[in-house]
């Protein structure tokens, strides 16, 4: 603390004053400084933005850490998805359904598979409490993984759209657009379930609901379902997919926000997750 002349009595008086009250004064000054610093930092961190979210996800946490130890989960989900898609396509084509309907129904399978399996694994580790006390909480990891799963689903759907187009001489671009819009609509619904229900259970209910509605639609109105997917403009599917993606990223940012964490933990007071 620099010494300065303080009028009456000067340095000696100031020293004496500090001798008596010094600890308290210094503590008060330190506290004020800390409060000021915190308020400045608060104003900087109050608004989570898209760039910040992407940097946190892909740079600060990083893809390697997001999926560290998840090779088994991804492999199992991948195998299940490939088998399911194969069976679904066979069954639907046998029933005379359109290949586009098969693509639309099966597009979110990889996303759902990885999410459910990784959640089971995470829950089994019991690391929720520890993760919630870290800078990047369980919800940051959850949101980042959901975004990663969208990306994986996008790549996988692109590949199988290409494969189906070759195998069944279908319109590859339409197949890809249909699967892209389906994946993004599913992701939107899934995250909406998480946000509204403040729990994984409600998200899983939405996930089940999506598949159920599709199968019911397919069962009761197969002609309409097939025609819609075959005749609606490709650009519409792409537009729906892009809008869905933008909205989904906003949802994921909401999942990492403190307000959602508060609502979630309050709702989770009586349950495990």
């Amino acid at each position: 603390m620099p010494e300065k002349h303080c009028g009456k009595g000067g340095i000696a008086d100031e020293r004496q004053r500090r001798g008596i009250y010094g600890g308290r004064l210094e503590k008060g000054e330190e506290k004020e400084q800390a409060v000021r610093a915190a308020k400045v930092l608060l104003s900087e961190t109050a608004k989570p933005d898209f760039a910040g979210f992407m940097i946190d996800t892909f740079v600060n946490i990083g893809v390697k850490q997001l999926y560290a130890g998840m090779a088994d989960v991804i492999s199992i989900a991948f195998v299940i998805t490939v088998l399911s898609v194969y069976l679904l396509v066979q069954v639907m084509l046998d029933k005379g359904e359109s290949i586009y309907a098969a693509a639309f129904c099966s597009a979110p399978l990889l996303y759902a598979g990885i999410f459910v399996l990784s959640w089971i694994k995470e829950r089994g580790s019991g690391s929720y409490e520890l993760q919630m006390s870290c800078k990047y909480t369980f919800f940051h990891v959850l949101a980042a993984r959901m975004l990663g799963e969208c990306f994986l689903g996008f790549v996988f759907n692109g590949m199988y759209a290409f494969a189906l187009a070759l195998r069944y001489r279908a319109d590859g671009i339409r197949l890809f657009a249909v699967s892209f819009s389906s994946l993004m609509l599913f992701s939107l619904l899934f995250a909406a379930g998480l946000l509204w229900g403040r729990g994984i259970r409600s998200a899983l209910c939405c996930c089940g609901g999506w598949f159920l509605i599709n199968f019911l639609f397919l069962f009761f109105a197969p002609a309409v379902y097939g025609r819609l997917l075959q005749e609606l403009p490709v650009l519409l599917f792409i537009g729906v997919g892009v809008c869905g993606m933008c909205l989904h990223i906003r949802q994921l940012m909401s999942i990492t926000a403190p307000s959602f964490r508060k609502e979630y933990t309050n709702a989770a007071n009586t349950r495990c997750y």
Partner: protein
Amino acid sequence: MLQIQDVTKNYQNFVALEHINLEFENGIYGLLAPNGAGKTTLLKLITTLLFPTEGKILYDGVEIRKLDALYREKLGFLPQDFGYYREYTPEKYLHYIGVLKGMERRELQDKIGQMLELVGLSEHKNKKMKKFSGGMIQRVGIAQALLNDPQILVLDEPTAGLDPGERMRFRKILTSLSKDKTVLVSTHIVSDVEFIANHIVMLKDKKVHCNDTVENICKKLEGSIFETVVEEEELSGWEERYQVVSRRREGRDIVIRFISRNGRQGWQPVKPGLEDVFLFLYGKE
């Protein structure tokens, strides 16, 4: 400084904590209470795992809820049921937690080495954690809590599963850290905090019962703790009349340590310890 201002926490209709007021500065604080008294709830509030129903928790004058990630960056936490990944090595696990704590990757590698050295796990850094004993797992937990050099270190039952040697080593680590950190140790094992804590916080009936130094807390029972020799047949009668805090056999007799407001001839007054206070407060719970 961490301040808890008039905090109440309800779980639906159940009141877990009521009007808690506490201030924590640098040093070791022992949080003592029997199981179910609200220790873990208090720690969860401090670590932002839960949010208060009423009241505020402030760090350097700002609500921790508002500080959010800035606050959590300063936090080190060892939960009671410390979750880990069985297939991970301690090195890989600490790396993962370090990333979640927002640590710089360059700094992280050095810090992992230091922490493994500190908890005596350097030789086991490449072994999978599924092969570790309970004590070794707990040491990994301690290492992760210290990894980011936290300003506030919260440890919930940290010595569970540690052998006496490991406990001593752990206390040494805490003492060396407490100079410039707020260390909060929640336990129901009195000896864990009796000789290292600057302050003891005791919870009773969902409220703070006392918050003082070990010396001052023990002073309150001065002149009320006695030792006397009884025969085995008399023991149950003594236990009915007085709160017997300990007993030890000496030949055919039993020496009992008990609490009584007034002394009598033949009773040897003894200096009260924290364990006596703990048993006095919670003995019947």
